[in-house]
């Protein structure tokens, strides 16, 4: 059941996975929404302070919502933000349910804290979609990159890049949040395979450039030791990069997750690294979740609880193609895969019992 129902090439994506990610069958296989389109959607975000969340919200408000309105699928999106407070997010979600939204999208929260609330929504006929991270509730649908795979691949890349030996600083996201933990765990496992590589420090960058910069600076200032490479999660690599630049130390390889600012530095210093990874493309992840949501509301019957995407490496040529020569070192944008390069509809169809084009305007 669940993932087993998927075709083999999709099943492959689930081979290296955070064991906590629920892989069973979806509770929404036979789901029918309370009422027909246009639907009212709730987006209960837990945070609004970084480049990534901004891009994701932008994707909803300026791309997905207008298109869905035009297609007569969605009437409005209610957005809330809880400043990383679980109790507040719980209250906001419950209020959304009580106010009659038809579906709720949440983002990358604590993996268990919202479960009771998700069940509450489910019982009220409101499906909950968690994107860019999973929750363990059987009543949610998760959609994201396979962050464990990403952590592993980025760690392996870094290890190779620094010659399989040396000191590594790990800059994690928000400890305890789904994708952050999946990433760290897999990354550490991968680095553990190199006996000469040592993780000499671990700081939390909170997925925010400014925080990452301060934390890394403090670390570098108080730890005089040599650092040979920095393994960081996404939406904060530019902060890490700036901290290195300010420390006056020689530049070392840093893992890149798609922030256009850090990518710009790479474009200007092509020798610095040789690969980046689409592991958190905000607009694509949001689009993926949105389409899953539309399909579910349309009654297409999702087969699995968790929709994982493979992590895609990108090269300096991809960077050159998406940002100009005189790019902005302070950009807040992302280098992302092409619109259908992340979750193509042909593949998406394979995840649903009764696939159809989610964007097809409804006949009145």
């Amino acid at each position, binding site marked *: 059941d669940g993932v087993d129902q998927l075709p083999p090439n999709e099943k492959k994506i689930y081979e290296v996975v955070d064991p906590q990610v629920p892989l069973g069958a979806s509770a929404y296989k036979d789901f029918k929404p309370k009422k027909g389109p246009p639907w009212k959607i709730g987006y209960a975000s837990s945070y609004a302070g970084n480049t990534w969340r901004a891009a994701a919200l932008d994707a909803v408000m300026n791309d997905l919502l207008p298109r869905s309105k035009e297609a007569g699928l969605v009437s409005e999106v209610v957005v809330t933000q809880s400043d990383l407070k679980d109790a507040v997010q719980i209250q906001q979600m419950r209020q959304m349910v009580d106010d009659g939204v038809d579906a709720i999208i949440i983002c990358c929260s604590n993996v268990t804290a919202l479960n009771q609330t998700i069940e509450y929504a489910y019982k009220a006929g409101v499906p909950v979609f968690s994107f860019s991270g999973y929750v363990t509730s059987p009543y949610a649908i998760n959609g994201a990159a396979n962050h464990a795979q990403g952590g592993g691949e980025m760690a392996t890349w870094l290890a190779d890049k620094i010659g399989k030996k040396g000191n590594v600083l790990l800059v994690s996201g928000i400890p305890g949040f789904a994708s952050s933990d999946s990433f760290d765990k897999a990354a550490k496992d991968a680095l553990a395979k190199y006996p000469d590589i040592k993780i000499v420090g671990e700081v939390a960058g909170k997925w925010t450039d400014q*925080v990452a*910069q301060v934390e890394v600076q403090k670390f570098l*200032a*108080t730890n005089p030791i040599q650092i040979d490479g920095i393994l960081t999660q996404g939406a904060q690599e530019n902060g890490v990069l700036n901290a290195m630049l*300010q420390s006056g130390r020689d530049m070392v390889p840093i893992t890149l997750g798609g922030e256009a600012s850090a990518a710009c530095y790479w474009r200007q210093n092509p020798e610095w690294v040789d690969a980046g990874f689409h592991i958190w493309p905000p607009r694509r992840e949001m689009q993926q979740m949105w389409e899953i949501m539309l399909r579910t509301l349309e009654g297409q019957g999702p087969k699995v609880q968790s929709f994982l995407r493979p992590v895609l490496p990108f090269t300096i040529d991809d960077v050159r193609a998406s940002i100009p020569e005189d790019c902005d070192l302070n950009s807040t944008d992302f280098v992302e895969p092409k619109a259908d390069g992340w979750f193509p509809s042909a593949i998406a169809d394979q995840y649903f019992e009764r696939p159809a084009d989610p964007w097809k305007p409804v006949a009145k």
Partner: protein
Amino acid sequence: MISTVLNTEIGATRGASPLRKHKSISIGFCLLACLLILGALLVPGFVSPQNARSILLLAAFLGLASVGQTLCALVGALDLSIPYIIGGANILLPSLMVAGLPAPVAMIVVLLLGILVGACNGALSFRLQGQALIMSLGLGFAAVGAVQIYTSLGSQFGGTVFAPVPGWLRNLSAFNGKFFGLPFPPVIVIWAFIAVALGWIMHNTWFGRSLYAVGGSRTAAARLGISEFKIWTVIHSVSGAMSALTGMLLLGFSGGGFVGVGDPYLFTTVAAVVIGGTSLLGGAGGYGATVLGVLVLTVLTSLLVGLGLSFPAQQAVVGLLIVPMVAIYARSPHIRNQI
């Protein structure tokens, strides 16, 4: 006869009294020395120009943020708006610059707003005494909320502002900043200057003496024509100004506006004041003591980091040390002795 006795006594006690009176200061110095020795023995690279520079830099931020807390503690108040003003200034400055204000103008605007919040704080809370800290918390919430709403308008970011930080600001407070070619960031000098000036002001001006008077006895001070209202307003304004300044300087350090930069200063400023030996009940202590408190706290943290303690462990150790440290010099008298 009495007068001759007195004369000799004035002479004799000059030397002895500062030590006795400033027990907390001497203890602070000892503690600092111990920590430095421990660091030198236990942590390789602890005694190095780089480490000294980074300790002083981090201390400078904490020190600047603690100016207001010290002044407030001297009248028995606590200013809980400090972290919020720091955070607010940290995002407001870049956002004003993005909006097209020239940097100096933007900085003055931020500074004035900081002073304004502080002034409201003092003016509204001087009657509240014990509740004053909540007033400052309320105003802090309101101020930071308003700033965040402002900076989020027309942007997708809440609580962060992405804007290039001017090079000179970066130089002021980044690790690799230079002070007239010398290898340390100017913010350290700014802090030292403010500390010396403040210490002098507290002891040699009417403002300083009135501040202690109000902290020691409100009514007695009122009888001398010292306006409690003015004192509260001024010190809270200073606190607001210093918080705004800290927030702006931190921008040069963090490379972008982030409202959370102030968070660590909520209780660390209080800890620095308390460890320094300023009573939270008012009337006794001073900024000199706080400077020591700040250094002790920063060196201790650096030592703990060097020993490989994680952040949570550092926090726990600092917490554990506060009570014994305060117990050495600031135990309250037994109630038997207060009758």
